[in-house]
């Protein structure tokens, strides 16, 4: 195998893994802090991608879509939490599954009513529509490098926010021992709303970033949702660090698996998940497992 081909696949794998991190970190935090399974998390990704498509078509500028996805995601997430999810924290898993399944159906129907059922492509911003020469024989898309950079920036901001701020330490406390939060006199409702809003914004940002990399199509969140579950199982639930390393691992394994073992396309990540379940059922990065 040639070196530049391998390098391209590794970069693709890292970039896919970082997108997965944006999605699965929200999933794992929402579960870790509130104990809610959000199957509609993949639909939030889809909404972000369609938002990017709509904004790009209206204004011609993708870079407007990114802050719009984040701001819209924060608002939308806070609204969903306030109106629906708040009632389901203490309900059974089955009720949560059906609530979020209903949301998938409703989001897809809304998407179909507003923007139709066609496949669309979203052009990368003109400024980034060129290739960066990495070695003499190999160059890599500037937009993909920009996605890598944005995702890394978000990851760093998340770590700082969680490790260094008062709100972040409250979120960590809530994820480890939910009853502690009330004892400490913190406002658990505010923490829940913030976590849900941030999770939603991250998923929608991931969708907006991914829109130019693949086409935008109905049910596009489904595949990302399933793989994000694999990431959470592999990384360990409730842990952002676990989601980070798990997502990179899954991104690389999936991309390299598809490139070099064509017969087993797509199955590699599930084999990895099975191995992790056999070896460390709590996840690779679970604390004290």
């Amino acid at each position, binding site marked *: 195998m040639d070196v530049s081909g391998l390098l391209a696949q590794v970069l693709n794998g890292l970039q896919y893994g970082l997108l997965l991190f944006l999605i699965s970190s929200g999933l794992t935090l929402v579960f870790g802090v509130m104990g809610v399974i959000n199957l509609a998390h993949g639909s939030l990704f889809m909404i972000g991608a369609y938002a990017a498509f709509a904004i790009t078509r209206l204004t011609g500028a993708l870079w407007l879509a990114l802050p719009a996805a984040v701001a819209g995601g924060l608002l939308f997430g806070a609204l969903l939490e306030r109106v629906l999810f708040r009632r389901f924290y203490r309900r059974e898993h*089955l*009720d949560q599954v*059906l609530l979020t399944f209903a949301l998938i159906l*409703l989001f897809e129907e809304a998407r179909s009513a507003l923007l139709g059922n066609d496949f669309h492509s979203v052009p990368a911003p003109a400024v980034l529509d060129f290739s960066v020469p990495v070695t003499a024989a190999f160059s890599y898309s500037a937009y993909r490098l920009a996605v890598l950079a944005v995702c890394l920036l978000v990851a760093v901001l998340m770590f700082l926010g969680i490790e260094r701020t008062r709100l972040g330490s409250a979120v960590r406390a809530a994820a480890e021992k939910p009853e502690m939060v009330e004892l400490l006199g913190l406002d658990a409702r505010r923490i829940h709303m913030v976590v849900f809003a941030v999770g939603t914004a991250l998923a929608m940002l991931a969708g907006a970033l991914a829109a130019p990399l693949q086409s935008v199509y109905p049910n596009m969140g489904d595949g990302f949702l*399933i793989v994000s579950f694999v990431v*959470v*199982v592999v990384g360990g639930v409730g842990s952002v660090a676990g989601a980070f390393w798990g997502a990179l691992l899954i991104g690389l394994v999936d991309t390299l698996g598809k490139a070099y073992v064509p017969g087993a396309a797509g*199955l590699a990540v599930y084999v990895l998940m*099975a191995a992790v379940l056999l070896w460390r*059922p709590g996840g690779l990065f679970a604390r004290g497992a």
Partner: protein
Amino acid sequence: MIVASRAGHAALALAALAVALMPLWASGYHVQLASTALVAAMFALSLQLLVGAAGMVSLGHAAFFGIGAYAVHLLPAGLSILFTLPASALLAAAAALPVGALSLRTRGFFFLMTTLAFGQMLFFLFHDTPLGGGKDGVFVSRPALEAFGFAFEVPRRSRPTVLLLLNLGVLAAMYAGLAALMGTLFGHALRGIRENEDRMRALGYDTRRVKLAAFVLAGALAGVAGHMSAMTEAFVNPELLGWHRSAEGLLMILLGGLGALHGPILGAAAFVGLGEAATLLTERRRLVEGLVILAVVLVLPRGLAGLRLGLLRRREPAPVAAAAAEP
């Protein structure tokens, strides 16, 4: 989970009779729709063994349904149903065994995600590889109605009737078998696990093995349902294995009521009826479905059977006490 009272069983038997006589009073279209509902009821009933009895919420159950259906495609055409039906069940059970063994290393939320992921793995196996005939699905030839050298030729005109009676018979047998199973020590152990798994373990039960047995049995029954689906529709496609179908099974259970063994049958009938009504009323079927699900989880968390649960509750034996009698 409770088995219906004597009066409840009488009502179920009356409903079965009404369905069996449908060819006399309903249109051909509605006879076929009833077959679809019966197959859906089989699938939901097999899932109830996990969800209602043992409290295990699986999102990968449709994979075993799909494998049972694809078994009809993979086996040579023209075989007797006496051979293809058990073959479907066995194939689905063979897939459920490793999936269950791995997924049951986890509990709760993790179990849900793991079953979902493995279910999608099997979906991709049929969607992306030539094994199942591709992502658009294939037509299959129906297994022959033939037993001990006596072949039963079905004229094309009466085929919906024959399929309806066949599906009704399989569903009735499945229900009777599960009702009997819930009365055995195994059934009591499952209920005990749902109530308090740690206590069951402290009592000396190998709870993971009990759960694995239930998972494999539920997989086999889903395979039977899948077989009857392939037989009824004469068509299989990868969507049969997809997780949306698993979620629909859970919805049928919740619609009908978690607490009763016959709940999924009511739920499946309600679900198929709802889908039909939605299609008649509007182009936007998912909108109606989504709103109904929202209404159910917000307003009616115990399902249709839950409306009568107060009356039936007396019949439920104390599960943990009965299980504790085991030395």
